[in-house]
């Protein structure tokens, strides 16, 4: 196997990693402010992809076919819709269960994912089959031996990294981010100093879900196909990534996302058995990692999570 093929695998792994990281950051944000896991988050990604697809078809019906314009509209539509959906989920499904056992929240959000999945399957036209996703990015490519650097993938990779960076900036550098971090640290005290707890939670869910919506678009543009059932695996992978990295830490989520992608890539390249085992391999390693470091690789300081 020469360097070109290896580089190709590495690049594809990075691409996967950025999608996983975008999902994992959402998990980590939600866990930060509310100590909950929104298990339907993967299906929010899927819903974002389908909203984007529907927007694109709508634009086509209006006769607008400039790809550069369409891709921005599609991404914005997915982001905004999912932001609204996220706030809605927080308001009506997650906040009412604040005082209930964690199991209840887990169950409700798992079922929310299942409901989103079924809604798309049943009510999107021909939704039970994979839908082609339009190629909206320039398809230029540079060939370096066995390594093909595609312009569209590079744009997606950069977009993903930039959106994560922006979210990180919001959390670290703005007043809103200060409020989010305050609530994450101690919601009672945050309330005492006049932070509107519920608003912060809703906004955090909106930010995380918008990120998921954009991740859905990135996914669609990268694979040129979306299916109603991609959310479950994406959700579990995103959650695994967040946990392995250390729930509550954005850097941990990014690390976990890339780590999971690396495991999958190694699983499909380096294992002596069929590459179809890559998920079996990746999840087995994840279970071992959780056993070894239950608080994640980048642990929240003074956490009592286990």
């Amino acid at each position, binding site marked *: 196997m020469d360097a070109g093929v290896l580089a190709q695998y590495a690049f594809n792994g990075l691409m996967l990693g950025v999608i996983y990281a975008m999902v994992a950051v959402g998990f980590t944000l939600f866990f930060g402010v509310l100590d909950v896991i929104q298990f339907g988050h993967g299906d929010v990604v899927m819903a974002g992809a389908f909203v984007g697809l529907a927007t694109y078809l709508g634009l086509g019906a209006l006769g607008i076919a400039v790809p550069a314009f369409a891709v921005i509209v599609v991404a914005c539509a997915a982001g905004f819709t999912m932001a609204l959906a996220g706030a809605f989920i927080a308001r009506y499904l997650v906040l009412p269960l604040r005082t209930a056992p964690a199991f209840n929240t887990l169950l409700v959000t798992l079922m929310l994912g299942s409901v989103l999945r079924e809604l798309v399957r049943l009510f999107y036209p021909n939704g039970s089959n994979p839908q082609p996703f339009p190629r909206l990015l320039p398809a230029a490519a540079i060939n370096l031996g066995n390594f093909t650097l595609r312009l569209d993938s590079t744009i997606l990779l950069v977009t993903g990294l930039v959106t994560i960076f922006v979210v990180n900036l919001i959390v670290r550098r703005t007043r809103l981010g200060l409020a989010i971090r305050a609530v994450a640290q101690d919601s009672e005290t945050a309330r005492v100093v006049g932070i509107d707890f519920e608003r912060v939670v809703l906004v955090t869910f909106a930010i995380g879900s918008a990120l998921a919506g954009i991740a859905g678009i990135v996914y669609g543009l990268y694979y040129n196909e979306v299916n109603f059932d991609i959310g479950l695996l994406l959700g579990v992978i995103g959650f695994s990534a967040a946990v392995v990295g250390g729930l509550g830490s954005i850097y941990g989520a990014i690390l976990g996302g890339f780590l999971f992608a690396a495991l999958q890539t190694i699983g499909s390249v380096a294992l002596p058995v069929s590459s179809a085992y890559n998920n079996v391999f990746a999840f087995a390693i994840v279970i071992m990692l*959780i056993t070894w470091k239950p608080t994640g690789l980048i642990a929240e300081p003074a956490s009592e999570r286990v």
Partner: protein
Amino acid sequence: MRRVAATDRRARSVSASGLVAVVVGIAACGAWLWAFLATDRVWLVAALLVVAAIAFVLVPRVDAVGAYRDAFARHRRVAVALSALAVLGVGVALYDQPYPLLMLCTVLLFIVPCIGLTIQTGYAGIVNFAGAAFFGTGAYTAAVLASRHVPHLAGIVAGGVVAALVGSLLILPMLRTRGYYAALVTIAFGILFSTFLEVNNALGGPQGLKLPGIDLVGWKFNRDVAVGGERASFYVNYVVLSLALALAAFVFARRVERSWVGLAFDAVRLDETAAAAFGIDIARAKILAFTLGNFLCGIAGAVYSMMQGFIAPNNFTFGESLILVSIVILGGLGNPLGLVPAALVIVVVPQKLQFIQEYRFLLYGVLVILVVLFRPEGLLPRRAREYFAGTLR
């Protein structure tokens, strides 16, 4: 002295009328079950569901219910035996209708893994979102052993044992983690399991495996039963076996709950620190609950697979695990009795109302969300332990 005798007499007369109440109640439930399974008319199914819903809302409002509940508590053994007889009676009454019998078996065999999950989640507080994986482990074990001509009874028991052994792979992660992290471990395992079956050629891959009908020491389950000129569907055999299994699991769960083991499970679930302070070995309690639950899942999976005659990876996906958890939550977490109506709702209703079959996963999802938001204790909430009938009011 005389007062004691009078109380005694009164108690005995209450007891006698209580027994009548128990018999009538169980007979009514049996009749309802028979009608529900036998009919294929949509309006009748709807009417029966309405009747059940009305009874469900009204019965707890009636004053006599406290006494009724006492009657059940006092005659627990009689009640359990009568209920089993009633189900058997329903099976016999449906003797020539294979499809309703198959549904009855399915309900009974789904109750068993759900009892396993009840022991894990409801008692010891261990979340398990890989129920279908352990069910599937039992099924595949039975399939492999049956193809090697191992006696079927041994195959079924081995199904449970292998499921428990596979579960023991997860014990260390389960002990090291809690809450969401533990949930992730089981979810990851559930997905790992179905992916593994999907890509593994030795176990039939996506096409799955075929199984023979059960043959228990000469009792061939897949042969129609002929009694006095009447031919009964061979599913009657499976009704008997799955009823025995469900009954054994139910009695076992109740025994565990009433024992000090069950008390230890509850303590671990409610507060690990306090439980440890009382000298309960938390690790031991969790391992025990987890293993018992997985064993039950495996046994039921083995019988289920031989009844179906065919298994494939998509019978044991994460979605199926969610169905098992839905039954447990809908029934009332921690109450094995609640699993019966819940399994009927989840398993049989979509079969009876074919027009909702397509939408069933959507409906389950919405149903569970509504239950958790508005009635988190489920259809039949778990009640405090009563070591002596009538002491709790």
